[in-house]
């Protein structure tokens, strides 16, 4: 086979492998992620102070958070949340890194949690008692020694252990399910941050209002914000909405990639057959001569198939490398949604290249085997 045909064939097969790995990877991702669309939590919202990105947290003062909470209709549960990430705490003689979460006693209503002991109460919050609840992993680490936690100079009594998922992807800055200590937000401000309620940052306000739509809540905020001087830009997000928006965007992009990959796959397949056929046509006399010298049709089929399979193997290796690079780039852009590219995918790529090579070699190999030696040798060089 001429080097040009060989190179074209290798590139064609590599293209096919890359396209197929994308089709499989993207298809798998679309299949796995599509069920996540539409999981909006009815009546549950976040109010946050931010720009256009739902993940950008500018924060608000506790004073502003309390003002906003006061605008909400009666019977609406809400909880302000302020977080200190990776704060050093002391349990007995040991120091430990944990998330310290200042929140309201209503925080538990937002999640389905098991509580051993209790969460801090409304009364404890109002009287600014130094009490806290911890996640179960911290309790399991320290066991019955976990009676008090010292944060800074303040000592907090541990009144309960919470167990369960406390995370809403895309809407919350942190997963509170593990390694977290919950304490009344006012105490958090005064004893941990050493700030008053006009300073510090409340990350968000969780709102549980089954009778309100997102629009209703936005209208309540707009109506009240207009009366404030230097009104902050407060936004409302339904739980699951950020996820949904991001997911739909990613899935649309992946669908486009899927379609492009499919077209590339078809073109690559066509390209492989065309090049292989052209390579056979180009060596019409050679195959005719070989037939004249005693090559049986099976010998020629074997010879052509071996040639194409050799290219397919090289194309497969090349394709796997390129697919790995493409995967890395896609991983960079669509990160957590992307199906992993692993050894199985790589091996599948090479096997696929061989199968494609074998299938596409059938037509040209058969054409080569059917060349009439008399006609082929009669042709002018």
């Amino acid at each position, binding site marked *: 086979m001429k080097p040009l045909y060989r190179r074209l064939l290798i590139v064609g097969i590599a293209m096919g492998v890359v396209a197929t790995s994308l089709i499989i990877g993207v298809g798998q991702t679309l299949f796995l992620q599509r069920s996540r669309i539409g999981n909006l939590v009815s009546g549950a919202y976040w109010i946050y102070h931010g720009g256009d990105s739902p993940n950008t947290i500018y924060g608000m003062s506790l004073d502003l958070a309390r003002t906003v909470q006061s605008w909400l209709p009666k019977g609406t549960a809400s909880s302000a949340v302020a977080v200190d990430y990776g704060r050093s705490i002391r349990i007995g003689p040991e120091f430990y890194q944990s998330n310290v979460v200042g929140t309201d006693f209503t925080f538990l209503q937002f999640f389905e949690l098991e509580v051993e002991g209790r969460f801090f109460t409304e009364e404890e919050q109002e009287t600014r008692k130094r009490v806290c609840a911890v996640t179960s992993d911290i309790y399991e680490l320290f066991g019955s020694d976990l009676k008090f936690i010292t944060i800074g100079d303040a000592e907090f009594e541990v009144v309960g252990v919470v167990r369960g998922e406390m995370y809403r992807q895309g809407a919350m800055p942190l997963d509170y399910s593990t390694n977290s200590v919950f304490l009344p937000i006012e105490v958090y401000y005064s004893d941990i941050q050493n700030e008053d309620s006009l300073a510090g940052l409340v990350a968000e306000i969780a709102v549980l209002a089954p009778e309100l739509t997102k629009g209703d809540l936005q209208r309540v905020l707009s109506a009240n914000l207009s009366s404030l001087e230097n009104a902050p830009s407060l936004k409302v997000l339904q739980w699951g909405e950020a996820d949904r928006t991001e997911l739909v965007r990613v899935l649309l992009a992946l669908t486009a990639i899927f379609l492009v990959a499919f077209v590339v796959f078809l073109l690559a397949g066509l390209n492989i057959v065309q090049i292989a056929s052209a390579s056979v046509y180009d060596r019409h*006399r*050679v195959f005719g*001569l*070989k*037939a*004249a*010298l*005693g*090559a*049986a*049709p*099976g*010998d020629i089929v074997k010879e052509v198939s071996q040639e194409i399979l050799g290219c397919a193997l090289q194309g497969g290796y090349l394709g796997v490398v390129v697919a790995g690079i493409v995967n890395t780039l896609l991983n960079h852009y669509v990160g957590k949604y992307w199906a992993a590219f692993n050894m199985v995918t790589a091996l599948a790529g090479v096997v696929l290249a061989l199968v494609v090579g074998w299938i596409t070699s059938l037509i040209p190999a058969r054409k080569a085997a059917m060349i009439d*030696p*008399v006609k082929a*040798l009669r042709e002018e*060089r």
Partner: protein
Amino acid sequence: MLELNGISKVYGQGASQVEALRDVDLNISPGEFVAVMGTSGCGKTTLLNIIGCLDTATSGIYTLQGKDVSRLSLKDKARVRNKTFGFVFQAFNLLAEYTVLENVTLPLRYSGVPKRRWKEQGLGVLERLGIADLSSRYPDQLSGGQQQRVAIARALVNDPEIIIADEPTGNLDTGTGREIVSVLCDLVEKQKKIVILATHDGAVASRAQRLLQMVDGRIIDDSTVPTGAVSFSHPAE
């Protein structure tokens, strides 16, 4: 060895139908050097192609080593071409991307000879033809005479019983052509092979033992060649 009875070959259909061979009868025994002469288009090459199992007769019976060739499958015909025949073509038909040795050993690939013996067998036959020193060259580095010797070496590498040479001197000058015919004569005299050679050249044909003269697809004369030059005349002339 080989026997043709009433062999005809028709190409095309209807108005464009051409009868390349008409009712040809022929018997050739081992050790014969047969020259086939005739004008262009008289059916020489068609006859050689049918004898060499490259082509199939439209009608008639061709018996080779006691077997009816028309009953052979494509695979069996390929095997017969590989084992029983050696082909020498006017245009040499060497593969440009293969070395001399690779060209010569090409038929061994299809004959079941183990790969480790290809080189030994190829060099052996090149040695016999006095061109072993050319084994690593490529065809475009050889003269016409050398290329035809390589083609003969390729034809002999499987030690076939019949050599079919279609105008083997057609692309060579007179002196070189004479040398090539001498090589073919040696094959008949020393190795008792059958050589069937198609030529326009009376001088070449004169080296054969038997001469078939063809006109319009028929053998019009089948005679022993007298010593000296052979002349060919078309009946119409």
